[in-house]
């Protein structure tokens, strides 16, 4: 095992490290960042200026003066600005210059979530609930798809769209259901992923694809600004506010797992799912990437993703790969499972099997 040249997913003896995370991806011994930073409030640019005190305070002052300047400009330009407008401008400014979520402390995560909730309230008068819950220990999420059971009803697709606040205009969908002809094997090239007829169609079987949350995700490697990463519970997430929209991850994904907001996403206010997570289904803007997050807003609360609960045939199985008693582990141990494009070494945490 140790001499393997390529990456492989290891479920049996995952190294347990109690790392005090400082965001630099090194273990405690190698990390030369000072770990006492929890005592201080850090935000925005300051995340990367965390080495020396004088520089940090200097930068803080700079930011503060910029803030005052912006405030002054916004008030002086308009004599009739009310408090709400000022607050909105203040929030927009702080949101524009906040840091990368991955490197934030829990306090900073809370702060940005509160700002986003308040911003939504100011704009629409409605209250949303947004979570910034971190990954739990000893959890690694995995997914299995039963090809024999799927009948192509696409209930998972509509549940996903509603749950995850996807753009209704461009009809963005994370899940694709491929209708394949019997007797031709897994022939994706001839499969139809855009059918409009009664299902199950005679002589056909169905196979769903979405983001596979690879354990060795190529999309994460290529991102120039670390706007996408793999969380400790195995979910590959995107910080929508840090993404610059270069779409390199889209070119790197072998599974068509990623979607881009080519225009401003639109969802009727009454259809917005208000139970949100910062890394999950919160509202996106134009020009950023998004994708399936295993419904992080649900799965981190111990619930199944929306597609799993919506499936009328029970073709979809979700659970904790590190829990030996979970259904997903039973499937992996008792069924003949396979994954797509395994030769690429991406180690998807999404398996297919048949009865």
């Amino acid at each position, binding site marked *: 095992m140790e001499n393997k040249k390529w990456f492989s997913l290891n479920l049996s003896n995952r190294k347990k490290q109690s790392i005090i995370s400082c965001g630099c991806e090194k273990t405690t011994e190698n990390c030369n960042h000072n770990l006492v930073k929890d005592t201080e409030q850090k935000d925005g*640019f300051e*995340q*990367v200026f965390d080495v020396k005190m004088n520089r940090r305070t200097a930068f803080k002052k700079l930011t503060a003066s910029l803030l005052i300047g912006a405030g002054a400009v916004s008030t002086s330009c308009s004599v009739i600005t009310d408090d709400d407008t000022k607050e909105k401008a203040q929030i927009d400014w702080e949101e*524009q210059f906040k*840091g*990368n979520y991955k*490197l934030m402390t829990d306090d900073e995560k809370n702060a940005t979530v509160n700002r986003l909730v308040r911003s939504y309230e100011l704009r629409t008068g409605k209250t949303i609930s947004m979570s910034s819950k971190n990954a739990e220990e000893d959890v690694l999420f995995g997914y299995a798809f039963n090809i024999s059971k799927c009948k192509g009803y696409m209930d998972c697709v509509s549940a996903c769209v509603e749950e995850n606040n996807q753009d209704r205009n*461009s009809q963005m969908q994370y899940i*694709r259901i*491929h209708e394949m002809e019997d007797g031709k094997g897994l022939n*994706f*090239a*001839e*499969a139809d*992923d855009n059918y409009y007829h009664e299902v199950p169609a005679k002589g056909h079987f169905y196979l769903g*694809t979405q983001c596979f949350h690879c354990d060795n995700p*190529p999309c994460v*490697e*290529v*991102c*120039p*600004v*670390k*706007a996408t990463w793999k969380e400790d519970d195995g979910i590959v997430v995107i910080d929508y*506010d*840090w*993404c*610059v*929209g*270069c*779409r*390199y991850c*889209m*070119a*790197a*994904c*072998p*599974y*068509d797992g990623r*979607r*881009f*907001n*080519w*225009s*401003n996403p639109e969802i009727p206010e009454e259809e917005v799912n208000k139970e949100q997570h910062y890394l999950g289904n919160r509202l996106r803007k*134009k*020009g*950023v*990437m998004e994708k399936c997050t295993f419904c992080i807003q649900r799965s981190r609360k111990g619930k199944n993703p929306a597609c799993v609960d919506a499936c009328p045939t029970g073709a979809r199985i979700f659970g904790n790969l590190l829990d030996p008693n979970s259904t997903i582990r039973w499937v992996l141990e008792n069924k003949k499972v396979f994954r797509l494009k395994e030769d*690429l*070494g*991406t180690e998807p945490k999404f398996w297919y099997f048949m009865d």
Partner: protein
Amino acid sequence: MKRFKILKSLVIDSIRTTTHGSKKYHLWMAFLTFVMLIGMYCYSIQLKHGLSVTGMSDSVSWGLYISNFTFLVGVAAAAVILVMPTYILKDIDFKQAVLIGEGIAVSALIMCLAFVVADMGGPSVLWHMIPGIGVFNFPNSMLAWDVIALNGYLFINISIPFYILFKLYQGKKPNPKVYIPGALISVFWAVGIHLVTAFLYQGLQARPFWNNALLGPRFLASAFAAGPALIIIVLAIIRTYTAFKIEDKTLKKIALVVTVAAQINLIMLVSELFKEFYAPTHHSESAYYLFFGLHGKTALLPWIWSAISMNVLATIVLSIHKLRNNFKVLFFACALLFIAIWIEKGFGLIVPGFIPGSYGKIVEYTPTGIEIGVTLGIWAMGAFVFTILAKTAIKIETSEMRYKKLDY
């Protein structure tokens, strides 16, 4: 203090030089400004509505912008063909042309950066990419490498000519000890920027059309053909319209470089075609789509076949001494080669990488009017920048523009 005074005088003189000229010059600059304005208007529409105004989609997620970016990196890298002989091998035949070559590199790099910015979904958060205040995924992301490579090369190519011109402006001789190390770095850096840009595509296991070891070397070969071809055309224009003397010998030497590079490029093309079509696998589908079309989808056929015929024709013409030494034929062949390689890098490389998609679905790509408008605008900007740089450089090199010499 004195240096600042000279610098101030240089800036003032340059502004005077670039704002004065013949009627043709003013018409040319007005035309470029007009095209740039159209480009800016198109870009404002794109900013407002998002990238949905382009022809790109979830299937073909890079298009005209990234194609042009890739091509222009090659053009920029080609300056090395003039830099190395002049500064390091001390070949005086190239000396006249070297500053022009560096000017082309600078404007090509500015265009590259503009194309990348135009392709971004969120240009307002581009500061996330600036090392220091953003978060830079170095060394993992090849795009992060590319940002460093391109900006570094831009810096080298601005600083060396600036130093030389600054000295010449004062009537002094530039000190080789100052600029030779820079020139030496720039030689390696030029190869570097193009290899890094090739690795950007080559490193993606998801796209078998790009994921081959020949991509990087072929990028270099085509760059050293297309870049110097452009330099020949530009030099020909300059020597017709200005007092700047460029000898036939110089053009002939650059033509030889173009010829050899074009020949190597063709050999590599044959090697690629052999690999894709002798024993075709699932991974050859993109090549099939590109050259013959797949399932009745044939959008790229006219592009690639005209590119290949132009490429072959130009290479044959250049390989025959008699034809190459006839300047009219040479310029024609260079123009053919330039266009052929532009198509090859764009519609022949970037677009088919996405077709068929990850699951075999074929979605074709056609650029929209707005995309073409922005593209033309950026090309006009490149030409504008080059004209300004070249005009100033030529005035200094021909000793017309000198410190405290006001009689022109």
